[in-house]
């Protein structure tokens, strides 16, 4: 019997090596440890062993059984590992295959620029007011100190709906509505659509402006430049500077054009800035006393500054867009380049 046990032990070692799957593991179990396996068979054979040898023999068989059980456990762990590996291999994907997503949409560049400007001024305490797009003559012109015979009111420039009602040509109309509704201190932005009877490569009959207005005590031209410096650094980078130069708008006095140092060449001169080092970006000035008076605000107590930004102009500069028409064609291949 002793020799049988040794043979079995040797055989078991051989069989153990062949275990490499759940099936062979199961076979191994059945072969050695199952009900009709070899170990239980040895146990049965013990009856035939001389009684005096039984304890020692039993001990040997028990050791063998323990040994087999340990081996089984090791094999079981090995098989589990093998199976996990092969499962993982089977499930492996080509991670460079295209992703399954609904392509994200986008916000229009005009919305993006509008929001960026709003963010800058919201931090300075500006509220956002959106006035009507269909305006009356009074708000769009008369109370903004645009006299009856001013060329800006000509049928050539303004879309009229009736003698009195028109499509606003400028968001400045919103200034009046704000000053009618609120008393100083006022800090407000008026973004929105404006309309002019003009259409070519650089003009669209509809475009967007953002008006800014501050009315408070002791507001000066220096504050206008300070505010606009902040805006320009935010839009075009911390390196840019602004420059004021004289201009004319009926609703501001003094009036200025604001140029920003060219962010493309740093002011050295390039195609974008037409080799001047500066890019014209907006107009503004000190609110005309008559405009304050027209809104019941005492110009001897309060002063104001105002500016008007063309959103398309900023978007064109910021994103390098060269044709205003692209904003309104809504070609998806154009729109999808902007992020939401």
């Amino acid at each position, binding site marked *: 019997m002793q020799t049988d046990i040794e043979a079995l032990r040797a055989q078991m070692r051989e069989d153990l090596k062949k275990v490499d799957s759940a099936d062979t593991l199961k076979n191994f179990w059945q072969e050695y440890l199952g009900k009709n396996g070899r170990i239980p068979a040895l146990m049965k054979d013990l009856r035939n062993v001389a009684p005096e040898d039984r304890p020692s023999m039993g001990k040997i068989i028990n050791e063998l059984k323990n040994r087999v059980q340990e081996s089984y456990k090791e094999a079981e762990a090995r098989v589990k590992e093998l199976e996990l590996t092969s499962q993982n291999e089977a499930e492996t994907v080509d991670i460079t295959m295209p992703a399954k997503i609904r392509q994200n949409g986008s916000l229009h560049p005009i919305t993006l620029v509008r929001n960026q400007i709003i963010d800058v001024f919201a931090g300075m305490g500006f509220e956002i007011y959106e006035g009507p797009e269909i305006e009356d003559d009074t708000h769009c012109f008369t109370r903004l100190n645009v006299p009856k015979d001013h060329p800006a009111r000509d049928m050539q420039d303004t*879309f009229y709906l009736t003698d009195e009602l028109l499509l606003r040509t400028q968001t400045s109309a919103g200034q009046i509505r704000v000053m009618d509704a609120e008393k100083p201190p006022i800090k407000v932005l008026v973004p929105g659509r404006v309309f002019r009877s003009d259409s070519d490569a650089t003009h669209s009959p509809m475009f967007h402006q953002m008006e800014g207005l501050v009315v408070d005590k002791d507001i*000066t031209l220096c504050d206008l430049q300070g505010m606009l410096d902040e805006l320009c650094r935010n839009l075009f980078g911390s390196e840019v500077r602004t420059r004021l130069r004289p201009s004319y708008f009926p609703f501001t006095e003094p009036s200025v054009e604001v140029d920003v140092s060219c962010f493309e060449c740093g002011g050295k001169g390039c195609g974008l800035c037409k080799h001047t080092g500066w890019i014209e970006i907006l107009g503004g000035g000190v609110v005309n006393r008559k405009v304050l008076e027209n809104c019941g605000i005492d110009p001897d107590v309060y*002063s104001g500054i105002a500016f008007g930004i063309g959103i398309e102009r900023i978007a064109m500069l910021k994103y390098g867009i060269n044709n205003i028409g692209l904003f309104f064609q809504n070609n998806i291949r154009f729109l999808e380049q902007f992020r*939401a």
Partner: protein
Amino acid sequence: MKLPFSWLKEYVDVDITPEELETRLFSCGFEVEELIHLSEGISRVVVGEITHMEKQEGTDHLYLCRVNCGPEYGEDLAITTGAPNIFEGAIVPVALDGATLPGGIVIKARKMHGIMSNGMMCSGTELGITDDMYPGAEVNGLLILNGDPNATLGRDIAEVVGLDDTIFDISITANRPDCQSILGLAREVAALLDKPLHMPATDYEITGEPDPEISVRVEAPDLCPRYLAHYVRNLRIQESPRWMKRHLALMGLRSINNIVDITNHTLLEIGQPMHAFDLDHVEGKSICVRRATEGEKITTLDEKEFTLHPNNLVICDAKKPVALAGIMGGLNSEIEADTKELLFECATFARDSVRKTSRALGQISDSSSRYEKGVDQFGTELGLRRALHLIQELDCGDITPTAFDCSADEKHECMTLTARPEQINKVLGIEVPAETMIDILRRLQFGVEDHDGEWTVTVPRFREDIEGVPDLAEEVIREYGYDHIVPTFLAKAAVTNGGMNGYQKRQMTLKHLLAGQGFHEAVTLSFYSAADLDRLHIPADAPERKAIRILNPISENLSIMRTTLAPSMLNIIVDNLKNGNSEGRLFELANVYIPYSLPLDRMPDERLALCLGVFGPEEDFFTVKGAIEAIGQVTGLEFTYERAQVSYLHPGMTAAVIANGKRVGVFGKLANDVTEELSLAKDDRTGRNIYLAELDYAAIDAMIDENYHYRPLNDHVEQKRDLALICDERVTVGEIEACILQASPLAVEAKLFDVYRGKNIGAGRKSMAFTVTLSDREKDVTDNAAQKAVHKILSNLKFKLGAELRQE
């Protein structure tokens, strides 16, 4: 406004280059749009003399000349020419080898008929000049320079013919009509450079006899604040002198004769439009400024006939109009070669009146555009005196004492302002020294009297734009320099709370949501045409047709204010398909304009609408419905859907969106007939699958409740039951859902998870499987309670909808 550098220098001793002056003008408010160097493109063209000429053999018109261009360029150059007007001793412009001429022409020495020609002798035309720029420039042949003392051999031709000049094209802002003249700009330059201004001569002597029969009166003083007239007799109409022709030529005008040229010159120099009437053709020698009578006619100098209206101001003689005031003279009283006596008109007309008449008649002139910008009364007097001086200087007539000054406003005194220097600094925000301000204002011809810091400022008469302290502040800072402004960050302003309000933030939230759903934001024009509504089959009596019309649209395509966004959306979808974009999702959030009445009697209802456009092979009714549902989720509104009919949507694939019992929009597939009519390629499979949604965003937003509370979670046991129901094909999911939820208070949700049709069920029938959630916020739902609820649900389904549990 054009400003020739040479002409400017007649009034101001400019000692800087044109480029430097450009920079200085820019910084004080005069942007030079273009700096035109007249000699641009001309190089290596010098004065030469033909010393010898002989006919070139084998040709019938070419001459071989020996040309002396001075020691620097060659005293014996062989040059061939075919010009007919050459002679030995002729002094002519010579383009040397390598010379350039206007238009990019390059001259090279080359062989002509076997003989080397070392350049080209030029005509005036080849140099780009006219007779007015240089006498004889337009003759057929070479420009002959003989007799010109400047034409020394080898000299640069630009210096000889006056092309060594620069023209500034300056953009003048609307508040500075006084700078729409050479003198006005010279005044600015003098101030800028702190140099004296040499005023043009305006003195003259009376040499002619008066004519007491002449009369002038103004019957419409509101439209003609000032009317000056002066009688000149014994006219001697001739050519103008060379300097005057050159002035006109530099400004792009052709010389006509001395009288006409004087009026044009005065317009350019002083900025004052003038007119000269041939007095022989002014009936009754009487001038009357009045409104035209209805139907009155005039033929202007350019031989156009106009029928007039009482809004038009005219200058009339005793019987008829002889000029359209401020716009153009009449053909009937034109100055001609034999005109013997004239009446000068020098007037101020209301700019609005001139503009309206000019636009209404479609007749625009240099004069009318000057009046539209504004002509001051100071210029009126100055202009007339200058013109009379020129009459005398050019010796072309006898100035008489017969003169008229009809003025509605007798006060021609200068305006005065009071100001304190600190008021000016308060506008600017910096400290400009008082002496500096006074100096600047003095240079700009303001008078300043200082009474212990209280200034009395006398405004020059040509500065009608100056009204108060802020204007003075602008004058000071534009001369002092905007680079002195020190940016401050609202140093003294009150702290305020800023940012978007809830309505504005919700719109942004919606836009971000839609972008997350794959929509690209579109921006389209607010106007379109009735044809765009036709394309969507919108019926003639539909409310969308009640749209506001623009009185003066750019074109019929952009003539009505939109009442719905869908037509704009469909247009851009079609554009995208035509551009090869076969799928996409677009949205626009924008105003529609709903009039309360037409014709418009008050401001309309402008309300935000949201339009979705979805197209492509992957899309269907339910992907679009998914986007609508997402809007419901982000707004916190529970949308329900009802079948609806919309002219442009498929009758079987259209839903109305209902929120809180109110219809807030529609969506669906584009109707087959509408799709058919779009000019899309027949084989475009994607173009056939277009969906539109239009929602009343203003109404939706008004329903949003931002002050909502959370609902406590239900800790009690819920039960779920799956029910497969067989019913008639016409029964809808919505009906079954509603029926289940109504049948038992425990039923809180009924969710469809399968639809099946097949032979074993029978034609015209379908099986729909729902998971029903049974829940009670008070207690656990027991099996028994669930059993009872399901029983009740099934009996209701059978009774109301004929739906039965499917038997396996």
